[in-house]
């Protein structure tokens, strides 16, 4: 027997399976000091211990058998199954918009291997059609798997490749782009694409899901339908994030790629526009703009692709008593740009000043953003702020720290000239800096307050 027969087993458990010649996917009868058990041996997850054997019993449940209790074992049958999502041809409908779905590796639609619990992604149009047949009523879909990386591994290489591919698709005359993406770094990619793909004539929609589609309560199908609708039928030709509006299955939001942030580790409605109002709501019926000043869809193909990125850029999240050696270390390591997330209006403490001076002298570009996420830097208000500006830190207004990080990387990919860097950074491409913060751009209401609770009770949010 080769190792393949004991998927995931190691140590004691592996020895036991070998001793009794029982394989994964084999039907086994096991005698233990706790009584007899019967079932199909399942693969064991790599991270679990080596003291248990996993069985699927006849009622469909999984159980673990303690290797220390086993007195005998016998394989009575063997049946390995292979799983595949059946392809169904995606129907082409005359008159529907052409959409290209670009895959990055994040799983939006998927199917479950019911025996192991492994998620098998659905990606080709045929597979997607099998999983979300409603998509055929929205668009004519083609797909391209650009790479297969987890959300947290998305980086400059992927941003550039995406931007170039999208440029090509626009050239070929596609009506809209949808990008499937894990949610963790969805907003970073959205910001990067906003800077790298300028003047797009068509919508570019990033979409993910907070609940994988192997769950009946998944948000994946609805998010996909919303994204396809926005990309194919919507009039907003910008880089946008499309995710749940409220936690209820009601509508999606379209967020501007530069002002959006994941704000809850697990909620469906985790993506919020910060310091502004969302671009639009979207349902299967169509896109309803909330903001009126969006960039509309055009017939031309005059897109500008700017795939640049300097990787030696970082974010420093300031905390009280931060020591100057943190900054020194970054400079020594060759970092060319630092985004600081400062306290309050954009502050850090005096002991850091010498380190800031040293960094500035070495030509490191430093921009100040705020940890509060909402609001602008105001470095003129206090002396400390004025000191910092004198030492070379440039306030980045109300740019979100992560957006500022992406933008600085993109900027330094083009130039190293301090004045030019400052000009590019402070000239908004799509609202990463806004002139005004609307009064309703900061709505963090608190539960427990009578009028808020009344609102929550009446409206499904």
């Amino acid at each position, binding site marked *: 027997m080769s190792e393949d027969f004991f998927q995931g087993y190691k140590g004691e458990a592996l020895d036991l399976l070998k001793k009794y010649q029982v394989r994964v996917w084999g039907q086994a009868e096991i005698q233990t000091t706790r009584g007899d058990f019967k079932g199909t041996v399942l693969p064991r997850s790599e991270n679990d211990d080596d003291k248990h054997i996993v069985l699927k019993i006849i009622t469909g449940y999984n159980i673990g058998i303690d290797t220390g209790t086993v007195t005998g074992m016998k394989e009575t049958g063997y049946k390995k199954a292979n*799983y595949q999502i059946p392809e169904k041809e995606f129907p082409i409908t005359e008159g529907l918009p052409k959409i290209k779905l670009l895959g990055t590796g994040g799983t939006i639609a998927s199917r479950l291997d019911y025996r192991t619990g492994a998620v098998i992604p659905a990606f080709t149009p045929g597979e997607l059609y099998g999983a979300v047949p409603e998509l055929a009523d929205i668009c004519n879909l083609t797909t391209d798997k650009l790479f297969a990386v987890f959300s947290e591994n998305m980086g400059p290489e992927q941003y550039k490749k995406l931007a170039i591919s999208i440029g090509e698709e626009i050239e070929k005359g596609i009506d809209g782009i949808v990008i499937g993406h894990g949610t963790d770094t969805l907003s970073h990619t959205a910001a990067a694409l906003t800077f790298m793909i300028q003047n797009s004539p068509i919508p570019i929609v990033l979409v993910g899901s907070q609940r994988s589609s192997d769950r009946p309560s998944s948000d994946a199908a609805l998010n996909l339908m919303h994204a396809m609708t926005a990309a194919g039928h919507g009039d907003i030709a910008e880089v946008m994030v499309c995710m749940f509006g409220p936690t209820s299955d009601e509508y999606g939001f379209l967020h501007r790629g530069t002002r959006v942030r994941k704000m809850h580790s697990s909620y469906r409605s985790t993506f919020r526009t910060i310091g502004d109002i969302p671009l639009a709501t979207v349902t299967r019926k169509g896109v309803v703009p909330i903001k009126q000043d969006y960039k509309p869809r055009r017939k031309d193909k005059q897109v500008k692709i700017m795939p640049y990125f300097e990787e030696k850029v970082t974010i420093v999240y300031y905390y009280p008593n931060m020591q100057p050696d943190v900054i020194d270390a970054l400079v020594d390591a060759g970092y060319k740009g630092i985004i600081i997330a400062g306290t309050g209006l954009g502050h850090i403490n005096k002991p850091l000043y010498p380190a800031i001076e040293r960094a500035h002298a070495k030509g490191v570009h430093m921009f100040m953003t705020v940890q509060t996420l909402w609001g602008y830097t105001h470095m003129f208000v206090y002396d400390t702020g004025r000191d910092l500006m004198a030492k070379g830190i440039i306030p980045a207004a109300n740019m979100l720290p992560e957006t500022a990080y992406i933008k600085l990387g993109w900027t330094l990919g083009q130039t190293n000239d301090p004045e030019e860097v400052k000009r590019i950074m402070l000239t908004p491409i799509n609202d990463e800096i806004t002139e005004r913060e609307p009064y309703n751009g900061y709505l963090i209401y608190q539960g427990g307050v009578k009028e808020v609770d009344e609102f929550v009770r009446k409206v499904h949010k």
Partner: protein
Amino acid sequence: MYNYQKMENHFDPRANYEKTKKEVSYVPRKEATQKTYDDIGFMSGLEVHQQLLTDKKLFCNCPAGRFHDSDDYDAEVIRHMRPTLSELGEYDGTALMEFKTRKEIVYRLKHQTTCTYEVDDTPPFPINRQALDIAIEISLLSKLNIVGEVHITRKQYLDGSIPTGFQRTAIIGVEGEIPLKNKNVRLIQLSIEEDSCREISDIGHTRVYKTDRLGMPLIETVTYPDMVNPDEVMEACNYIRFLNRSTGKVRVGMGAGREDVNVSCKGGTRVEIKGVAHTKWIPELTHNECFRQWALLKIREKLQSKFADYKAWEMSHGFLDFDMFEITYEPLKVAKDSGEKLVAVNLPGFKGIMSHFTQPGKMFADEISDRLKVVACLEKPNLLHTEQFEPIITDLDLDIIAPMLNAGPDDAQLIVWGPEEDMKTALETIEERCKMAFEGVPEETRKSFENGTTIFERVLPGADRMYPDTDSAPIPLTNEVIDELSKGLPTDVVARYNQLKEWGVAESTYNYIFKRNLFPIIDTISKKHKISPKWLGNFIGHRMKWVEGHFEKGEGFNYEIIEDLLVFLKKKNYNLKLAYKMLPVLYHYPKMELESVLTSIKFKERQQDEITEKIDFLSEKFSSICYSDSTENRIDWIMGQLSRMAYGNMGLENLYQVVKQKISE
């Protein structure tokens, strides 16, 4: 379509119903014997659900066991359940059916009992260890083989009763056994699981749930289908419930224990009767379900004899115009006014089937109607047919409909109505159910009613709906943990239960008695001092419990004082009932002399004569103040006057006899 009483048609649905009932050999349960059940192959198994007594829910830190009124909520969340692809990349039966219904699910939440976990916005927290330990203890008591590692599994539920669309559940033990009077019943498994939402309403396309119960820890004990008559099912059920309660670590009261009962007849199908609220309903429900299946097999036989190739059977339908008929039937008037569609269906060869007996008071047409409600969301009444006892489709109506549908003399017709968008599903549902009639008994879950009948609830989900929970790590159960839990087990629970039952102690006291381990005290005192164990059990189980709930416990109180108290009363030859009044005082002041306790409750020792000599006087007084001279009233009144004085000095039965005798003198 007006209420037309006279039927010119020679077909008499009532007579057909009675005739088919006989053919099925249906007898009421009272007349049924083991032979009755053997003849139709009665087979039944149980899934007994029991809530565990924990402070918190199973996978989050919300409190368990707090409930709210349906209108008392802080927020509503709306979800839709979407079927997921099965192993073969297809949607399974239940999934499709639930999706067809396109229900909008509304969850009403209250902050006090619901966090973001319940509404599927937060992954599960580690499993509640208190709950897990209780489940292990009960598994040990049920003689199950305890697993080496607990794997949390997801079981899909698409009805919306759980917002995630699946229930987190895990096996604790497999292959156990419980002893009944005449046989042992084998157990398949015991699992721990999170409880589901409580349904508030289900009307049209909207189903409303509340989330207070959602996530509470529950165990499910599953038996093999070893029971061969309805009484055995109830006996097994009672046994499992008592066993669970004997630990004192499970919840009691409304909804804390619920049963799903699986029934099949010879050649039938395993049908699951869900959520039986009261054990006492079980015999009637299982009896009727077994006969329903027997009747469906009879129907199959009849249909198969009519159609050689039944796979080719097809129904036909035609949309009707409301104006074609004179409509007096109220639901149709409403349908017309709300712009609904009206459709007539012809069911070839179904004459005599529509009014075929299925359950007491129910016929085959009800099987169709029940499904229309659940699958197509058509509220009842949702159909008319040609074999109703009180016909609404008249011969005049039929003159219009029959030619349109090309109906033959051996066919049955029905009429359904509803919103246009539901009609496609409605027609599919009718055809599907009729085709199933050729196959026999559909696999389904059914909802139970107190009168012993059931209605269709859902299609029985496929085996595919189980898969591992990727949000939870497996939990090892070491020998040390199990040994430790075994030590705390009441070893002779079963014997004690049976003993209490035999003594006739009220069942409502068992939980308290076991929880406080008072059985040994009852046993010892009753034997040592010759006190009726029934009286003593009830005294302790009801009175002691009540006193504990209402008075502050004085320093030094322990349950042995009960023995001192009863011995004192016996010695003094006082009536034991005095203990009821003395106990609260004694509980609060355990060091008080028993004589002083008597004084504090204003008890005065009296000789029997002292009491009975007042009877004549009272009898005279009664004559002067009362209009009635019935002897009963006279005795009652005198008893009322004397009972206080008699309390503790002389038994009331005894006094009653004396009064009665004196009056008649």
